[in-house]
């Protein structure tokens, strides 16, 4: 009984996931095709200007851009299902290869950034909650509000100005110096500034959240009971309050993973860091259809998966959420 129910549950989730991805691919496909702009420019570059109409027609035919939209979509889908996502018009390479050569950089930046945000926010939140309304808490709150207001591109500019132009301590762009792509310390030096921007930009939002969550918890009745039993302040905070606050923090962080990854896009462009962000920006601007499709699908899949993970965590915490809103419908 329970097994079959579980199977149905996960089956439903899987179905929903596949449906969402399919819908997403249709939407991105249509929108990118409707958007004005000439994909031939990204394939042939400036030579497009000199092409005769016949040559143009031949080139479009060659790339399969003349067929009606549904035909193009079905062709893309059948290819995609067999693992063939087409070639990038700009790089004249398999799309998977193009992305594969760049995705590592984004994962390093976004991944380290996410881990740092995750742990630092937790620590800061606990610290602030521990010293609620104390001097430290108030200072941190003020500083945090200010940092979360600074647009990330401007923060990047100011950091470049200070550390790369004035002090000349750190490099201002790229992921590694020319010819040193294997040198770890060189990469780390290039990572410092972008990473700082990513972390500073998101940190306070989550730290403040965990701070308020703990403060809510501290006011609950069981804390009074635990204190009355003679438990110390620290052990109540860590063993009881934190334990209650962590699950909701986890689900929020699951939702925020794509958010943090998306935040790296702008940072990547400012620092001309060779990652997914710069790539998707280029591909959207220059109608590099196949590349754009895969990039959108990748981000979309990550977002949908993270949302599902968050939902699963929430349902684990509070089984009432699983029934959804069926109770509300009848009440009308």
């Amino acid at each position, binding site marked *: 009984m329970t097994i079959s129910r579980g199977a149905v549950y996960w089956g439903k989730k899987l179905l*929903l996931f596949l449906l*969402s991805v399919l*819908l*997403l691919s249709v*939407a*991105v496909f249509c*929108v*990118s095709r*409707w*958007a*004005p*702009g000439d994909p031939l420019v990204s394939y042939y570059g400036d030579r497009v200007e000199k092409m005769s109409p016949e040559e143009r027609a031949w080139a479009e035919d060659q790339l399969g851009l003349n067929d009606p939209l549904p035909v193009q979509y079905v062709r893309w889908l059948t290819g995609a299902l067999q693992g063939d996502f087409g070639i990038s018009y700009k790089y004249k390479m398999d799309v998977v290869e193009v992305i594969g050569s760049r995705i590592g950089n984004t994962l390093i930046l976004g991944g380290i950034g996410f881990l740092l945000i995750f742990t630092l926010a937790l620590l800061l939140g606990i610290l602030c909650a521990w010293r609620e309304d104390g001097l430290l808490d108030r200072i941190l709150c003020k500083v945090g*509000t*200010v940092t*979360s*207001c*600074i*647009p*990330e*591109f*401007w923060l990047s*500019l*100011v950091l*470049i*100005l200070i550390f790369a*132009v*004035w002090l000349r301590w750190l490099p*201002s762009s790229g992921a590694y110096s020319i010819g040193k792509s294997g040198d770890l310390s060189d990469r780390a030096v290039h990572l410092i500034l972008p990473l700082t921007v990513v972390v500073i930009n998101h940190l306070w939002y989550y730290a403040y959240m965990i701070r308020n969550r703990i403060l809510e918890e501290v*006011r609950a009745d069981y804390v009074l009971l635990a204190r009355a039993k003679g438990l110390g302040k620290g052990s109540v905070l860590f063993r009881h309050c934190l334990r209650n606050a962590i699950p909701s923090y986890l689900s929020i962080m699951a939702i925020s993973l*794509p958010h943090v990854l*998306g935040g790296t*896009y*702008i940072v990547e*462009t400012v620092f001309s860091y060779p990652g997914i962000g710069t790539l*998707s*920006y280029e591909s*959207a*601007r220059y109608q590099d259809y196949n590349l*754009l499709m895969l990039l*959108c699908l990748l*981000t*979309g899949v990550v*977002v*949908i998966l993270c*949302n599902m993970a968050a939902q699963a965590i929430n349902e684990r915490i509070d089984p009432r959420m699983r029934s959804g*809103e*069926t109770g*509300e*419908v009848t*009440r*009308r």
Partner: protein
Amino acid sequence: MKDDGFVIVGVRETPPPPAPRREPWYRGKPLFAGGVLGVIVLGCLLCGLFIPGDPSYMDLANASAAPGRAFLFGTDTMGRDIFSMIWYGGRVSLLIGVAGAAISTAVAVVLGAVSGCAPAWLDALLMRLTELFLSVPNLLLVVFLQAILGEASVLSISLVIGLTSWTSMAKVVRTEVRQLRSSEYVVAARSMGGGFFHILWRHLIPNFLSSIMFMVVMNVRSAIAAESTLSFMGIGLPLEVVTWGSMLSLSEKALLSGAWWIILVPGIFLVTTLLCLTSLGSYLRKAANRKERNL
């Protein structure tokens, strides 16, 4: 019997309780932020009065001049006076912030209310679509919309920003409407033949306005930030339209020549405005939640 064992004293005199100290009216209100924001807004609106010159006049002989007597905040790489650009540009930036927030609020309220009132399947469908919408990276959406709407203008960029930032508010509106829709006065209005928009305007919006008010202010903030980011990246307004963002798009060149004022001055104005809006917003949020907390 002697009576003097008992003395009738009447009601014992008690000193009247000290009158509760009236909190000064400005207590806990973001006066400083409001004042600074007011100065910036007024300065931008009235800049025609105290700035004689044309902000887009290019004084090529004085390109990238450092701040000084002649140019209070210096000039940019094209020789334009940054001091006058700040105020004129602020007009456009603030306008885009307000317009973008108005558009996103309108979309969020209508969609959220429809979703909140709709039968379960439509509601589920709308919410799934919202999630799907969220899963496309915002930057790409903006590039798409920009491409569809054609040449960037103040209106098109507000539209783009408004259409990409309604989702979280729509969710809040939906939750609020779900709680309100079965209350007696809504049922009464409906049974008297009130249409959807009538009920929305007369009954629902006044009830959830306070809970989305801070999101509206925050949307103004994020619209201003979004405009500056887009213009900076070169997919927003062109250089000729002076805004804080388009002023910052010259900063790549400024980095090479070390002209820090081109980067710092517009940025400081931008960040100050965002900061003021944030503290106004968080004040509104606290005001809306005041009843629930016993602190």
